[in-house]
C-alpha cells in the first residue's frame, strides 16, 4: 500500500478531463492505497455545495481525503459553511509535508 497526493487545479465545469483525475483517485483508493485529493486554484470551485459537488462527496465516502487550498477558497468567497460534505480547508503546506515524506504527487 502506498500514499498518493493528487493535486487538482482545474474544475469540472470548464474541463471534462477532471473526471479522469477524480476516477484515478477513486481507483487508487479502491486498491488499498492512501489517497489525498488536494484542490487548488479553480479546482476548489466544486467544493462549494453545488451540482458539481456530488463526485467529491462520493470520493470522500469512498475514503479519499479531500482538502481544499484555503487561499483558493478565500479568493473565490467559498466559506467553510458552504463547503460540501467531505471537503476540508487546508493550508498549502500540506503539499510540502507530503512531498517531503516521499508521497507520490501528481498535478492535474
Amino acid at each position: 500500500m502506498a500514499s498518493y497526493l493528487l493535486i487538482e487545479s482545474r474544475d469540472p465545469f470548464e474541463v471534462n478531463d477532471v473526471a479522469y483525475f477524480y476516477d484515478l483517485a477513486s481507483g487508487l483508493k479502491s486498491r488499498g492505497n492512501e489517497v489525498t485529493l488536494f484542490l487548488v486554484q479553480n479546482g476548489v470551485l466544486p467544493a462549494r455545495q453545488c451540482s458539481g459537488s456530488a463526485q467529491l462527496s462520493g470520493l470522500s465516502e469512498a475514503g479519499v481525503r479531500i482538502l481544499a487550498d484555503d487561499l483558493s477558497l478565500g479568493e473565490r468567497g467559498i466559506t467553510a459553511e458552504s463547503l460540501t460534505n467531505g471537503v476540508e480547508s487546508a493550508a498549502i503546506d500540506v503539499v510540502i509535508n507530503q512531498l517531503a515524506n516521499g508521497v507520490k504527487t501528481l498535478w492535474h
Partner: protein
Amino acid sequence: MATTLNIIESAYRATMEEQNDTVVWISHAMKGAGADLTVLLRGNAVNYAVLGQVSPALAFGDWKQTHAAHLDEDIASLISKGVDVYAVEDDFAARGISLSGLIPGVKTVNREGLLDLVENHDRVWHW
C-alpha cells in the same frame, strides 16, 4: 534505478513552432541521459500514436519552415530507444481512433492497466 512514468495528456500545444511535442522531447532527452522511463499517452495525446500525422511546414510572408514536426516518428523513435509507450484504450475509442492505425509498438491499456502503471513506477509525472 528508480523508474519514472511520464503521463502525457496535452497534445498539439505549440508543436508546429517547437517542431515537436516538448514533453515527448524531454522524454527523449531524459532517456538519453539514462532515465528508466515509461510513457503513457492519455486524453488527446493518444492521437500522437496515430500513424500518418502530417505537420505542415509553416509559411508567413517569405519565411518558410524548413524542418517541420514529425510527431509519429518521434513516438516511434522513443520506442526504438527502449521506452515502453502505452496509450489508454478508452481515449482512442472516444476519439474514433482505430487500433489498427497505430504506430507499431504502442501498447494499449485499460483503466486497470493505467492504475497498474501508476502503482508500479517509483515516480509518476503528470505533464
